[in-house]
């Protein structure tokens, strides 16, 4: 087994594009779920709003790519309002059901034949990222060249996306950090604890929950935009339920209600994910792994076993460190709602 290859892949993935857009999406989800206690199971829907906001510019509206940013934000706000208006008055479980359904509805609508003209059907929309990459080349990042150092080497195209993406992570991380230390953040955290108490103190809980949902949704839309720009296309099945739950997993791994948790969580998630894959592939590269004549795993099963091991790791984490890697154990102890 080539350990140096496995490890360098692992390190590269920890700051790669997947970890980057996961971190943006997790920052948004953390505001909703970690701080406000809103069970948003539809973050993929907000990401789709972002991706399609960019994708539809040249394809459908025939306008410049840059208009896609305000369009994506408007899409995310509309989606948040549609999900929030009927459900935020109810207990948060209902929000979970509505958000997961809404995200699926979006995916099924954009991939449908009926709306192929607008959304490009199952093939999605491609060839819109040109203007974005041009900015990179204008700054001297050649798409064909390799950039980076040691194991962190990327093509110019990836490198430019990564720079923009991690700058966004830093900006949103700082914004969330500031907001959660403000009186606004205090109201959100109080709502997570007991919304009736907050209501009895004269705060409009409904409005604060809506603000939290919309804020997290817009941040999620930026994650979707980065995903679309990295891939160079938007495809409906990139925004499936799985995506929401992987992001949620990465967030819980890092620790809820901590800015550091929502950035480091996705990095570790992808690191572990790629490391396990590398090890499993290494074990099965010379034929199926056998112990005492019994086949344990063969190369075609690596994908499934990899997810099983991630799941088992998450169960272990929840059992032995329920607050995540960065969470506060003391805080977790008062779960007496």
């Amino acid at each position, binding site marked *: 087994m080539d350990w140096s290859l496995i490890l360098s892949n692992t390190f590269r993935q920890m700051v790669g594009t997947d970890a980057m857009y996961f971190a943006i999406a997790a920052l948004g989800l953390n505001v909703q779920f970690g701080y406000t206690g809103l069970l948003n199971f539809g973050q993929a829907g907000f990401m789709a709003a972002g991706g399609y906001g960019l994708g539809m510019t040249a394809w459908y509206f025939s306008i410049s790519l840059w208009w896609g940013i305000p369009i994506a934000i408007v899409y995310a706000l509309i989606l948040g309002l549609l999900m929030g208006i009927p459900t935020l008055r109810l207990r948060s479980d209902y929000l979970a059901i509505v958000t997961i359904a809404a995200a699926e509805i979006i995916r099924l609508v954009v991939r449908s034949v009926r709306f192929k003209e607008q959304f490009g059907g199952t093939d999605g929309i491609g060839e819109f990222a040109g203007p974005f990459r041009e900015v990179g080349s204008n700054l001297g990042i050649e798409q064909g060249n390799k950039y980076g150092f040691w194991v962190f080497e990327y093509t110019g195209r990836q490198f430019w996306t990564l720079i923009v993406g991690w700058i966004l992570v830093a900006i949103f991380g700082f*914004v969330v950090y*500031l*907001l959660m230390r*403000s*009186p*606004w*953040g*205090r*109201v959100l*955290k*109080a709502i*997570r*604890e*007991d919304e*009736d*108490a*907050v*209501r*009895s*103190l*004269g*705060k*409009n*809980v409904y409005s604060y929950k809506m*603000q939290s949902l919309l*804020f997290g949704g817009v941040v999620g839309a930026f994650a979707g935009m980065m995903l679309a720009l990295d891939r160079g296309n938007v495809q409906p099945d990139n925004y499936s339920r799985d995506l929401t739950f992987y992001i949620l997993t990465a967030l819980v791994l890092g620790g809820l209600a901590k800015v550091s948790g929502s950035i480091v969580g996705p990095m570790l998630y992808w690191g572990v994910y790629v490391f396990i894959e590398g090890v499993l592939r290494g074990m099965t590269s010379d034929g199926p792994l056998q112990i005492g004549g019994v086949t344990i795993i063969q190369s075609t099963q690596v994908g499934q076993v990899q997810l099983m091991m991630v799941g088992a790791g998450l169960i272990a984490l929840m059992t032995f460190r329920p607050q995540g890697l960065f969470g506060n154990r*003391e*805080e977790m*102890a*008062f779960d*007496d*709602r």
Partner: protein
Amino acid sequence: MTDEADLTEVQEAQPLSQTALAARAALSEVAPVPGVAKPDPILIADSIRRNFGGIAAVDVDHLEVQRGSITALIGPNGAGKTTFFNLVTGFDKPSEGEWSFDGRSMHGVSPHKMAALGMVRTFQLTKSLTKLSVIENMKLGATDQRGERWWNGLLPWIWRKQEAEIEERSDELLGRFKLDHMRDEYAGSLSGGQRKLLEMARALMTNPSLVMLDEPMAGVNPALKQSLNRHVRGLRDEGMTVLFVEHDMDMVHDISDWVIVMAEGRLIAEGTPDQISSNPDVIDAYLGSHQGQSLLEDE
């Protein structure tokens, strides 16, 4: 853990303050009849009804609460006291009825607006925000905070000064309620009695004119009860009106200027504590109307 401090302060009933005497003088002219009009009511409820299925949990024809007084709302379990609280504070909607607070109709007003107008409540099961520190709990209570608009959250210089004032007021209240040593602890680490104190102190951060306390003494040890009693009296002496639900008759008798009795959803008696303790209707409601009689039917 801190209740020892309060033990030293157990005192016999203090002499009545000026405001208490004034409140009692104003109520001395009022006839002890259910639904009687008060000279200066802050809260007026008219034919408030709440049905749960076929049962009328609350069915109050008329009720007035005198401004600047401590009014107790008592009654056997299931009398509808807490439901009445929920209706008046907007946490539940009456099937029918009208009520006004400080001359303003409160019909259809959402609970947070009522709180902002000066009607604040506490809960029977204490709602301390366990994962926030005690001081954060307090600061949350302040109204009209500039930093509570989200875009201002990013501009700390806009709200920093107000935040400092709020913190000062919080610290002062925490000192009065003897919670200052717990200032930076999580509210979840407080004892049950301390949580009651915190909830009351937090409610005061809204600068209310009417404080509604739902069983402030439930689960509080006797030593702490004395200090809670003193705090409730202090609210009235500062010009607030207090309406509280309580089962602890000693407390009711000790501190209230007026007592309202509910049973089976209805108002059955009103009066000063002395009038109530000798009222046969009240004794019936608590002990049954055949109290002291033989249970044998044919007698």
